[in-house]
């Protein structure tokens, strides 16, 4: 109790609270700009951590992390461009909802879901961090491979309308991630002698081109003046209490998925959001409306990706193993402050750990308030005439992408993936499976080959690992269940028609 009060005292200072506010507000703006993202935001703030007190530094970094993860949903909803890869799934229902004239409600859902997801994860972090970290330690290469295969079942969920095209898209995403240097042997694959390709295809330029630039091409080719009249609902609208109660199950489940995936090092918020979206689409009573502006889709993606912010801190604080690239940078910042993450942190610096928990909860509350306050400003973007807005989006895409590596090759990737994204959309190929495949490929291939090294090149031995076996069984069920359920529902409908 004393440590808790001491931690609260550390937080309730002008410095810490102001740091959270500035961090969240800056993070939201940076996250909303395609191509920038949380890593840039936190890296930029690192020099400040030298001059700020320890508590204010940590509060600033946490605020930036929460804010930038949420900020990606703003551009995803308003201009079909995920501001960060973690909001790629938010596009699927957020943008259609905005196009239908409910941008204010879409932002309300994403803000609410992000805040609640982050708070749930922070509470879990507070109660069970060391225990969850131990569970994370049980995951070796074989288990990661099984988890990767399970995550690939997302493709079946998001591409239910046309499984063959969804599979082709997923395979394309997996293949594109293979280009470059082999992670285990260092051999070059499909670089065709190009120095730039030897480094592989970057996730951010690829994603920005696939979603953002292809959307520019699509909007210009498909211009519908009547559609513009609908997108006028600027502002922020909180979802009603009855709607929140109706969707509480999706919110809780997605937050738990995000927290759990966040605890597993190397997976990240993008995978968490996609897995959560696919799971929601599989089980929601309103699954037929996914892709048309269904709030469950926004809730699933946003609560999961914000839950990862706390989930990823679990292995970072408990074991000193960063949960994702962003917590890797934060680990560096903590070390610079003289804080040594690891099992002893909880016993030797207990009040600091409690401070981090409380700061996370406060950051999510501040994020909700900032999101509500900034939303009317952002939604004014929707009033800009389409040719002018799309032109400005092209400028932002170029500048945001260039800012990553100052590379003209990244701009080429943006253009090629933009053209490819348009061509695929033209013939009804879904884009999310490409992202799912691209993001999961390194984990799947690397863990499979490491697992084969451990099992002496025997795939059968993979089934002797209990956690992996459990995941394989669940994967098979997830693959087969939607088809069984569809058949069952069709036969029920046929019987009902016959009776009537």
């Amino acid at each position, binding site marked *: 109790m004393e440590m808790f009060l001491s931690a609260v005292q550390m937080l309730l200072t002008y410095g810490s609270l102001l740091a959270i506010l500035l961090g969240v507000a800056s993070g939201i703006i940076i996250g909303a700009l395609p191509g920038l993202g949380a890593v840039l935001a936190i890296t930029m703030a690192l020099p400040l951590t030298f001059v700020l007190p320890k508590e204010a530094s940590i509060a600033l970094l946490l605020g930036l992390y929460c804010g930038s993860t949420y900020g990606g949903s703003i551009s995803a909803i308003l201009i079909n461009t995920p501001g960060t890869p973690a909001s790629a799934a938010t596009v699927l229902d957020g943008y259609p909802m905005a196009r239908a004239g409910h941008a204010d409600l879409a932002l309300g859902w994403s803000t609410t879901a992000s805040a609640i997801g982050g708070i749930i994860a922070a509470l879990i972090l507070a109660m069970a961090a060391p225990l969850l970290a131990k569970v994370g330690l049980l995951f070796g290469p074989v288990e990661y491979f099984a988890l990767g295969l399970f995550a690939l079942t997302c493709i079946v969920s998001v591409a239910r309308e046309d499984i063959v095209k969804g599979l082709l898209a997923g395979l394309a995403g997996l293949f594109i991630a293979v280009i470059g240097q082999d992670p*285990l042997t260092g051999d070059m694959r499909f670089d065709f002698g190009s120095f730039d390709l030897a480094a592989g295809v970057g996730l951010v330029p690829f994603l920005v081109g696939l979603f953002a630039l292809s959307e520019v091409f699509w909007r210009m080719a498909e211009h519908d003046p009547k559609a513009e009249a609908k997108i006028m609902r600027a502002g922020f609208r909180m979802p009603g209490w009855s709607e929140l109660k109706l969707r509480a199950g999706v919110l809780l489940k997605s937050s738990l998925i995000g927290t759990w995936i966040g605890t597993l090092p190397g997976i990240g918020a993008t995978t968490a959001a996609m897995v959560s979206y696919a799971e929601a689409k599989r089980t929601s009573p309103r699954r037929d409306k996914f892709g048309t502006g269904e709030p469950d889709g926004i809730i699933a993606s946003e609560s999961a990706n914000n839950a990862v912010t706390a989930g990823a801190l679990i292995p970072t604080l408990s074991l000193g193993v960063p949960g994702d690239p962003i917590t890797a940078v934060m680990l560096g910042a903590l070390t610079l402050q003289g804080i040594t993450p690891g099992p002893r942190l909880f016993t030797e610096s207990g009040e600091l750990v409690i401070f981090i928990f409380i700061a996370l909860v406060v950051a999510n509350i501040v994020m909700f308030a900032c999101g509500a306050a900034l939303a009317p400003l952002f939604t004014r973007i929707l009033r800009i005439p389409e040719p002018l807005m799309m032109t400005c989006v092209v400028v932002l895409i170029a500048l945001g992408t260039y800012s990553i590596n100052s590379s*003209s090759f990244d701009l080429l990737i943006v253009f090629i993936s933009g*053209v490819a994204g348009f061509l695929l959309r033209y013939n009804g190929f879904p884009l999310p499976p490409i992202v799912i495949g691209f993001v999961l490929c390194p984990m799947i291939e690397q863990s499979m080959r490491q697992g084969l090294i451990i099992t002496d090149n025997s795939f059968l031995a993979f089934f002797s690992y209990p956690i992996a076996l459990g995941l394989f069984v669940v994967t098979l069920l997830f693959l087969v269940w939607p088809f069984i359920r569809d058949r069952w529902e069709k036969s029920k409908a046929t019987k009902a028609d016959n009776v009537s």
Partner: protein
Amino acid sequence: MTKRTLDLAYAAAWLAGAAALLWASFGLQFENTPISRNPAWFPQLLLTLMLIAAAVLAVRSFIRTTATPITSMRWQALAVTLLISALYLAAFVSVGFIPATVVLIPLMSWLLGFRRPLVIVLVTAGMTIGLWYAFTLLLNVTPPGPGLPVFR
């Protein structure tokens, strides 16, 4: 063009692309290497699956009983957008952010049907100057090419 024809065309493109890449992968010379140490195995698996899926798409397009037409598009507007975007991305690095942007915004807006010169000028100036300073001073990322005065 109908959806059936389009599906066939796409399936043919996937088949050709996957086959060509699969052919290229056999040049990596890892035939006798175990899977765990074979960098070619996983991409070859993916390409083989891609060939199978593309073949299924082709067969399905023949079996499909209805051949629904696809939505019409404004191809001229698309061509303009594609060409100008490509030129802008190329000029972004070679000529610089400011010159490229100052040309892009008025040109693309005008060609795509936005005809309010004053608004175009204001947006061009605002975006170019605002973004340049925001990225340079706040984010410490200097856009390529000629810049603006910085008073530190």
